[in-house]
């Protein structure tokens, strides 16, 4: 099977600063891969290198079996069979929608009105849009036209550089769904770059999580979500609730009770990760946790819970109709299995220079910084800072934060 995209040992640097560290990736034809990572991790650079807008320091890139970078050759972007949709403003402002679409067609077919309206149909836009100008379209409509234009050339690979980031929140979901549908029906391999976890999970079937120029995990979206390679990856792909615990055979003892482990882990102290949807909260007079604060959102509530004895703090989301007041005692139940990451198992190497294999073992160790946080004195500012660092990634598409960041002792 020829991969639509194959990357071997791709490296890139700006001056002395290494941006990408020897990346490898294969994207099968007719699949959608999302590259998910925080801002500044290098994902956009990766895309630009694949597109050919910049030259890498080293490595090889093959598109549809053709080597476009590496082995002494470099093919400019116009000769790679790619399609590219930027974050915004990629429609030529001085041309009408029709002319923009025709841009993708070759000379003979330029005047082909049928083809042009076909393209417009593809992205579910009305023919009346043809004579409008880009500034008369909404952001979502512009992105759709941009996609149609790109598909006109029947590329082997479509590259999307955070295409929904500049859209208003209400447009985002609709546009995303529309474009995902188009790409699926066109059967074209797609690589989407995004920092939005919800977007990555809903849009793509493959996921590559990137941190500081390296892939921490590559696999199907379900796999990465349910079996993240480490805590950082876990936090990037979804909200994570982390509690300290002890791993015994097949289960972990935690302040929330005994929780079965999804993946076997060596015995010892560990950070146990749950997804917030696994928690259910019930008011109980003799419950172990007390509600410290209630954040009411209408359709649900965010509860700040505290275990008076240990001082463990946990945030939990409950349906809005659940009656819970401050000071009440509640009982927590956990459904499903958790993942355990041994504490202090990884070496304290600085993040940037640590070479990572493609698929690191699940218990490769918690990130050094978070480990430190858990072992240090609780400092509310530090708490917030760490929360702020992780928060943008952990936000789901509704824009609400679901960080289950616990505290240290």
């Amino acid at each position, binding site marked *: 099977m020829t991969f639509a995209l194959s990357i071997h040992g791709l490296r890139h640097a700006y001056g002395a600063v290494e941006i990408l560290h020897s990346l490898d990736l294969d994207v099968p034809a007719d699949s959608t891969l999302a590259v998910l990572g925080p801002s500044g991790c290098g994902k956009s650079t990766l895309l630009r290198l694949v597109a050919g*807008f910049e030259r890498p320091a080293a490595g090889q890139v093959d598109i549809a079996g053709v080597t476009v970078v590496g082995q002494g050759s470099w093919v400019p972007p116009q000769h790679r069979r790619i399609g590219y949709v930027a974050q915004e403003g990629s429609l030529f402002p*001085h041309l009408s929608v029709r002319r923009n679409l025709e841009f993708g067609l070759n000379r003979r077919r330029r005047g082909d009105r049928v083809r042009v309206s076909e393209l417009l149909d593809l992205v579910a836009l009305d023919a009346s849009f043809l004579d409008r100008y880009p500034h008369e379209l909404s952001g979502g409509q512009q992105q759709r036209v941009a996609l149609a234009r790109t598909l006109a050339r029947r590329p082997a690979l479509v590259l999307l550089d955070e295409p929904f980031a500049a859209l208003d929140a209400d447009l985002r979901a609709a546009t995303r769904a529309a474009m995902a549908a188009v790409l699926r029906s066109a059967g074209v391999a797609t690589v989407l770059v995004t920092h939005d976890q919800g977007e990555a999970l809903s849009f793509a079937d493959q996921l590559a999580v990137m941190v500081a120029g390296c892939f921490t995990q590559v696999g199907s979206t379900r796999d990465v979500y349910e079996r993240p390679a480490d805590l950082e990856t876990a936090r990037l792909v979804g909200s994570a609730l982390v509690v300290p615990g002890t791993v015994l055979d097949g289960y972990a003892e935690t302040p929330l009770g005994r929780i079965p482990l999804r993946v076997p882990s060596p015995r010892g102290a560990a950070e146990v990760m749950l997804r917030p949807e696994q928690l259910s909260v019930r008011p109980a007079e003799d419950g172990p946790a007390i509600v410290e604060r209630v954040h009411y959102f209408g359709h649900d509530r965010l509860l700040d819970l505290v275990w008076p004895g240990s001082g463990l703090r946990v945030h939990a989301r409950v349906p809005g109709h659940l009656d819970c007041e401050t000071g009440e005692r509640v009982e927590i139940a956990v459904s499903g299995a958790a993942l355990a990451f041994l504490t202090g198992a990884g070496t304290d190497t600085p993040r940037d220079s640590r070479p990572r294999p493609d698929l690191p073992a699940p218990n490769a160790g918690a990130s050094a910084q978070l480990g430190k946080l858990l072992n240090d004195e609780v400092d509310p500012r530090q708490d917030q800072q760490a929360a702020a660092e992780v928060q943008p990634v952990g936000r789901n598409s509704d824009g609400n934060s679901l960080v289950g960041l616990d505290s240290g002792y």
Partner: protein
Amino acid sequence: MAVPVSLLGLIPIGYIVAESYALGWAGGQEALFRPRVADLLGNTLALVGTCLLGCVLLGVAAAWLVERTDLPGRRVWAAILVAPLAVPAFVNSYAWASLWPQFEGLPAATTITVLSYYPFVYLPVAAALRGLDPVLEETGAALGLGPVRRFVRVVLPQLRVAILGGGLLVGLHILAEFGALQMIGYETFTTVILVQFQSTFNGAAAVMLAGVLVACSLLFVTLELLARGGARYARVGAGAARPAVPVRLDLARWPVVAVLSGLLIAAVGVPAYAVARWWSYDAGIDSELIAALFSTLRFGLIGAAVTTLAALPLAWLAVRRRNLTSAALEQCAYLTSSLPGVVVALALVTLTVRWTDSLYQTTAVVAACYLMLFLPRSLVNLRAGLAQASPDLDDAARALGSSELKRLVRVTLPLIAPGVAGGAAFVFLAVCTELTATLLLAPTGTTTLATQFWAHSDSLDYAAAAPYAAVMIAISAPLAYLMLEQSRRLRRR
């Protein structure tokens, strides 16, 4: 207060209309439909055509090389490519004519005007290129366009406004150009109007020719407005533009540097050499030069002061109270400035001789002429400055308890000061190198650097003309640098 200032600008057009009316249809026809006029029209339009072509090609190429490639020493090139602004066109012409008198006709005229005026296109195009978001070009590449087609179909349309604006400036300058063309014997409307003036004062032929000239100016302005069109060129989107990846020149690098160096040698080196060489014959800084220098500085200061003061109310209206009236008044100002200096001067001479005798041949009239010609330069800078001094700041200050005067002094003035200074500087520069109108209007006994330079070079006394040229260049150089800085600053916003 803004109203009389702008209406002042309509005087020259009114003058032409009135005189033509007085001449009558038959007389006008006779003066106008002569083979000579057809000749001049041909000459003028031919020069406009070739010069525009040259300036656009040169300006765009130079701007692209400096802003978009990995040309070595880009920052230096960016500054010195603007250097020709420091050399008035007639000094440029003097250099070429004195060193190679056989060089004449359309080739000479084109060379000299292109070398003098290409910065008018280069500056706005470079600024536009700097502000371009490369996303369009990258998208173009992804859509299969090679580098050349990308430039033509993606980049050029985005440069359209800059090119058109610069081109209009070039066209208007050529229509108004006298000294540079007279010296190499290339006859256009303006050169002949002055010759006619010397033969018949303000006779019929001069007026009719002036009328044709005005018509051409208005035509150019209209064409530019139409060509700019309604289509949008601005980026659609609010994000920050990523700086573009420089194009690698590789093998072409040193040939390009050689060509650019050649250009600068021709544009700046030749005048510098000529001035230095002729000055070495004479080496005198005599009292004549000092007197001319003082007069020039005086005119410059008065011109700058009057124009800036007049521009303030107009700018205020344009920025704070945008309505139809303010826009119309502004357009009047721009209209007059697009007329050649000789026409404005002619109108003023006739007006003052016939109606306002006490003003005749006074500095006041000269100042009025400068006002009409250079108001837009001041206006553009003032508007930019005022726009920055937003009313919100004013309101905030008021809420904090400052009185009207205090607010003016401590909030508004410091914010608009750069705009005021910039505008005044440009007008000063323009006045110091103005030739045609000053020739017609200066009070008896007053000489300026430009008129003295002209008197000497007209009688082929190149050596005597050299010191004047040198001083004019010395005055223009810092102001040309200012123009460069202004353009850089405006784009960075």
